[in-house]
C-alpha cells in the first residue's frame, strides 16, 4: 500500500480561471526519497500543499479528486494532528518560525508542546535533533537573529522533531551555502535510513540525482514524467518539459547520442562519472 496516493487531482486557486493542477495521480511508497522538480510556477508547491491538507483547508479554491494518506482519506484527519504524520518545511525561512519562542532550543520543541509530549521526552528529543542538525552553537540564540540558512536549518529541525513518517521539503536549500546544502542532504539520507518518506522539491538536479530514488517531473500542473532517477534524469525530454538535467550528464548524453548508444546508462553524479571513467581506463 502506498503511503501517499493522489487520485485524479484537479485544483484551481480562488479567483483564477486556469487550473493549477490537472488530472494528477501519483503513488508514493514508504521509505523512498522523491525528487519533485519542474519549472517555476509549474505547481510543485501546490502539490505539496494538497498532500499536506493545506488545500483546501487553508487555501480555498476548487479541488476535486482524492488524497489518501496511509490508506485513509485526508479529510478524515484533523489538520493539526496531520503534523505528526506529515512534516512540511517551506521555501522561505523568514516566515517559518513560530514567532513566539525566544531561543532555538524552545523553537525546536514548539511542535512537540502543541501535541502534548511530556517535558522529559521533549528535552531528550530536542537534544537528539540539536545534535543531528549540528545546532549546538545556536540553541540559546533568538531564532529571529539567525541568518537565512541557519533559520532554514532550525525550521527543518523543528519539523523533524515531530517525528513524522512523511517529510515534505520545499526547496530546503534555496537559502543555503554549498556546505550547508550538503549537510541538509546528509540529513535527508539519514532520515531515509530511519524509514521516512521524503518528498523533496528542488531545482538542484545534481543533488537530486545523488540522493533521490525517484523523480517526479511537473510541467504546467501535470505530472509528465515519473520514474527512477537514472531513467528520468538521463532523458533529454526533461528539458523539453522545462526541467533540467545534471550538468555532468549532459556531456555523456551527447556522447551516447553521437555513438548511437543508449542514454539510459549515462553517469549522473560526480561519483558515477568517476566510476565510468575509471572503467574506461581514462583515470
Amino acid at each position, binding site marked *: 500500500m502506498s503511503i501517499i496516493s493522489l487520485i485524479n487531482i484537479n485544483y484551481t486557486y480562488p479567483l483564477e480561471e486556469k487550473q493549477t493542477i490537472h488530472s494528477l495521480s501519483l503513488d508514493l511508497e514508504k521509505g523512498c526519497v522523491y525528487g519533485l522538480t519542474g519549472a517555476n510556477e509549474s505547481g510543485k508547491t501546490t502539490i505539496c500543499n494538497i498532500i499536506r491538507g493545506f488545500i483546501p483547508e487553508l487555501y480555498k479554491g476548487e479541488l476535486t479528486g482524492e488524497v489518501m494518506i496511509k490508506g485513509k482519506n485526508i479529510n478524515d484527519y484533523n489538520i*493539526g494532528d496531520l503534523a505528526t504524520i506529515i512534516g512540511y518545511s517551506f521555501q522561505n525561512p523568514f516566515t517559518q518560525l513560530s514567532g513566539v519562542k525566544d531561543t532555538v532550543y524552545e523553537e525546536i520543541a514548539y511542535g512537540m508542546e502543541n501535541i502534548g509530549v511530556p517535558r522529559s521526552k521533549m528535552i531528550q528529543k530536542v537534544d537528539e535533533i540539536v545534535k543531528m542538525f549540528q545546532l549546538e552553537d545556536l540553541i540559546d540564540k533568538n531564532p529571529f537573529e539567525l541568518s537565512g540558512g541557519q533559520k532554514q536549518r532550525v525550521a527543518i529541525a523543528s519539523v523533524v522533531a515531530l517525528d513524522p513518517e512523511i517529510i515534505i521539503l520545499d526547496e530546503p536549500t534555496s537559502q543555503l551555502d554549498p556546505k550547508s546544502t550538503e549537510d541538509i542532504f546528509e540529513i535527508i539520507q539519514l532520515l531515509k535510513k530511519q524509514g521516512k518518506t521524503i518528498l523533496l522539491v528542488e531545482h538542484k538536479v545534481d543533488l537530486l540525482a545523488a540522493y533521490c530514488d525517484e523523480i517526479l517531473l511537473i510541467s504546467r500542473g501535470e505530472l509528465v514524467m515519473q520514474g527512477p532517477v537514472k531513467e528520468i534524469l538521463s532523458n533529454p525530454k526533461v528539458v523539453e518539459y522545462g526541467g533540467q538535467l545534471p550538468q555532468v550528464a549532459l556531456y555523456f548524453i551527447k556522447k551516447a547520442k553521437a555513438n548511437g548508444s543508449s542514454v539510459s546508462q549515462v553517469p549522473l553524479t560526480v561519483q558515477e562519472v568517476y566510476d565510468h571513467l575509471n572503467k574506461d581506463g581514462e583515470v
Partner: protein
Amino acid sequence: MDSRIGNLYPSSKFTFIILIILLSMLVPGFIFQYMIFLFIFLISLFSGTAIKFLSTFMKSIPILILFIFIFQVFLIVNEDSQQIWAFIHFSQIGLMTSLTMTSKIVAISSSIIWFFQVTRVKDIIYALEQSGVSQKVTFVIASTIQLIPQMLNLSRTIADAQKSRGIETEGTLFVRMKAFIPMIGPLVLSSIQQIEERVLALESRAFSSKAKKTSIYELRKQKIDYIIVIFCILVLIVYIVWRIKL
C-alpha cells in the same frame, strides 16, 4: 532578569504591582506615592535594573508630569487663581491637584516599568497558560511582542530600498512624512503575506492539534512566592480595615 527578584514567579510580582496600584489610589495626598517611587527605585537596584529603570522612566514620564503640572497650576482657573500674565494664572489648589495626580502616575508607572524589566515575556506567557488562559490568547501576546522588532526591521529594509532608488527619507519632518507614505503599502502588504505563510508554518507545528499542550520551559513557584502574595493581601486588608475604622 536573572536576579533573585527577577526569578520570582510572575504572579507574585504582579500581585505586588496590584498592591502598589491600589495603595496609590487609596492613600490620600502625594508623599506616600512619591515614597513608592523611591521604594521601586530601591528594588530595581536590587534587581540589577536601576540604570535601565531610570532611563525608561525619564524618557517617558517627566514629559507627562510637566504637561499636567503646567495645565493644573498655570492654565486651569481655580477659586484661588491669581493672574500672572494674560491667560497664565497661578493656583495653589492647582498645585496640590497636580502633585496628587502626578504622584499617582509616578507610583503606578514606575511599578509597571519595573515589572516588565524584571519579568521575561516567556515567564508571563507561561504563568498565563498555567492559570488557564487560552493558548490562542497567549500566542497573540507573545507573537506581538516578538514581531514588533521584525516589523521595524522590515520597515528599515523598505526605507533603505527606497533610499537606494533616490527617495529622500531623511531631513525635515515634512520630508520624513513624505517618505513614510510610500512605505506603508509595501510594509502592510508584505506583513499580510507573511501572516499567510506564518499560518502554514504554525499548522506544520501542530498549532491546532486538539491535544493538551505541554511546555519545555518550566517555572516553579517557590515558598517566597506564596509569602509575597499572602503579605500583599494582608497589607491591603489591614490598610482597608484601618481606613474604615478611622
